[in-house]
C-alpha cells in the first residue's frame, strides 16, 4: 500500500465548554500509523487521546485538518475500523455468541457460517465454553474478551481500543494484554490503544505516542525496540518505562503550568 494506513493531518478539535468558551481537545495534531503497527497513546486526562480514537472511528469530524484512512477522508463509522470500549458496550440482550455474530449479521453472512465464525472467534479468546452466556453472567475480563472477539471477527484493518482493560483487576489485565498481543500477531491487524498506564504501553506497543493536555498535542513519539514477549522484570523494560515516564513528566510540567495560568486568569 502506498502511504500510511492512518493519517491524522494537522487535526484540531474544538468544542464548546459549559460557559460557551472554546476548549481545544486537539491542537494541530499530526500522526501516521502504518498497517500492522501497534501504537499506544498515553497522556494525562484531557490530552485528547480518546478524541483521536473517536475521530478515527468516525464518531466525530475534525474541526480543522483531515483524518485519512487508507488515503481517503473518513465518512462515519465502518466495519474496517473496529472499536473496543472501556466497558458496558456488549449488547446486554445478546449472548456472547450473538454479540460476536452481530457484525457478521450486518454483512448478511448466512446463519451457519456466522455461527461457526463466531465460535472460532470466541475460541481464539478462550471463551468458547461461555458462548451462550449473557454479558451479566460474565466477569469483567471475560466481557472484554468477548468485546475483542466481536471487534476482530469482522476482520477490520485497525482496532481502536479506548482504555479497554482499565476496569479489570491487575492480574486479569496481564493475561488480557498477553492475549491481545497474540491476536495482534496472528491477525496482522493494526492496533491503536489508549492507556494511562505506562507499564501497559511498554508491554504492548511498538510505538508510544506521549500526549500533553490543554490544548491536546503530541509531545513525543517514542519507538519501543524490545522483542516480544517482553519481560516486565528485565532491565531493558525498566529503561523503556523510565524513558516514557520522563517524557510524561516533561509533558505534565507544561500542563501544570497552563492549568495554573488558567486558574490565574
Amino acid at each position: 500500500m502506498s502511504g500510511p494506513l492512518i493519517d491524522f493531518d494537522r487535526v484540531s478539535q474544538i468544542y464548546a465548554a459549559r460557559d460557551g468558551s472554546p476548549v481545544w481537545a486537539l491542537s494541530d495534531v499530526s500522526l501516521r500509523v502504518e498497517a500492522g503497527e501497534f501504537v499506544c497513546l498515553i497522556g494525562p486526562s484531557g490530552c485528547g487521546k480518546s478524541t483521536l480514537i473517536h475521530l478515527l472511528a468516525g464518531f466525530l469530524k475534525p474541526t480543522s485538518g483531515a483524518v485519512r484512512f487508507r488515503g481517503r477522508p473518513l465518512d462515519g463509522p465502518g466495519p474496517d475500523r473496529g472499536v473496543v470500549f472501556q466497558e458496558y458496550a456488549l449488547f446486554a440482550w445478546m449472548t456472547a455468541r450473538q454479540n460476536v455474530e452481530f457484525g457478521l449479521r450486518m454483512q448478511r453472512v448466512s446463519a451457519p457460517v456466522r455461527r461457526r465464525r463466531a465460535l472460532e472467534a470466541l475460541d481464539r479468546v478462550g471463551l468458547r465454553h461461555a458462548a451462550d452466556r449473557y454479558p451479566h453472567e460474565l466477569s469483567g475480563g471475560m466481557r472484554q474478551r468477548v468485546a475483542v472477539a466481536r471487534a476482530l471477527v469482522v476482520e477490520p484493518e485497525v482496532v481502536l481500543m479506548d482504555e479497554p482493560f482499565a476496569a479489570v483487576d491487575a492480574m486479569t489485565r496481564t493475561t488480557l494484554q498477553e492475549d491481545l498481543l497474540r491476536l495482534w500477531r496472528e491477525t496482522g491487524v493494526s492496533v491503536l490503544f489508549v492507556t494511562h498506564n505506562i507499564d501497559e504501553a511498554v508491554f504492548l506497543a511498538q510505538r508510544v505516542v506521549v500526549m500533553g493536555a490543554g490544548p491536546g498535542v503530541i509531545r513525543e513519539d517514542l519507538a519501543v525496540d524490545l522483542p516480544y514477549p517482553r519481560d516486565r522484570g528485565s532491565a531493558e523494560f525498566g529503561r523503556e518505562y523510565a524513558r516514557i515516564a520522563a517524557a510524561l513528566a516533561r509533558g505534565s510540567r507544561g500542563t501544570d503550568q497552563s492549568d495554573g495560568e488558567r486558574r490565574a486568569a
Partner: protein
Amino acid sequence: MTAATDDVTGNDLSSSRRPALEAPSDRDAFAKEFRRAHRRGLRRAAWLRALLNVTGILLFLAVWEAVPRLGTWVNPVLLPPPSVVFDTFVPMLLSGEIPANILASLRRAALGFGIATATGVTAGLLTARIGLLHHVSEPILHGFRSVPSIALVPLSVLWFGIGEGSKVALVAWGSFFPIWITTFIGVRDVPAAYLRSAACLGAGRLATLLLVVLPAALPMILAGLRQGIAVSLILLVAAELSGAREGVAYMMSTGHQMFRVDIMLIGLVLLGTFGFIADRLFVALIRRLFPWYTTAS
C-alpha cells in the same frame, strides 16, 4: 484415579466401605446431594412463602367476617361479611352473569391497551429518535398528558357514544401516555456505547433501531406497559360507570342502584384480582421472553 488405592481398599474392606474422599465419584455424589438439598431448601422456602400469603388472605377475610357480625357499630347491610358476598357470588357465577361481565370488561381493556401499546411505543420511538418531531410534538403531547384522563369521560361518551367505542378509546387514551413517555425516555437514554458499537459493526438505521435501540430501551418500555395496565383498569371502570350495558363496573353500578353492597363488593374483588393477575402474568412473561432482563418484578 489410582488402581493401587482401589485394590487396597477393595481387598481390605467390605463392599459397604466409603470410597476415599478425594475420589471423583464421591465428589460427584456429594455435589449431586448438595444440589438436591439446595433445591429442597428453595422449594421449602417457596412453599412457606405461599403459605404465608394464603394466611394473610385468610386473616383479612376473618376480620372482615367478624366485624359486621360482632360489632354493633357496623351496619351489615352496608358491609356484608364475605360469607354473604359469597352466597350472592355463586349463583351469579353459575348463571353466567359474572363471566359475561368479566369477558366484556377484559375485551375492552385488552383492546384499548393493545392500541395504546402500538401507538405509544411508536410515538415514543419516533419522538426520541427524530429531533424535529420531538420539538414539534412536545408541547401538545405534554399538554394532553397533564389533563387527567378521567376528565375526558363525558367528551368520549359524546364522541363515541355509550357503546364499546368510548370505553376502548378511553382506555387507549389513558394508557397511551405512560407508555409513550417511558418509551421516549428509554430510547433517548440508550447508552452511546451501544449505538457506537452498532455503527462500527456496520449496522444501518433500521438494524440499529430494531436490534439495538428497541432492546436497549426495553426495560423502560416494559415499565411503561406495566404502568399502562394499571391505568387501563382505572379508565375501564370510569368508562363503564359512566354508562354501559355490561362489564364488571357496570355490574357494580347496578348493585349501587339496587342498594346491593354485596354485588358492589364482588366487583371490587374481581377488579383487584384482575389487576393482580395481569401484573403477575406480565412479570412472568418478561422473565420468559427476556432472560437477560433480570431486574423485573
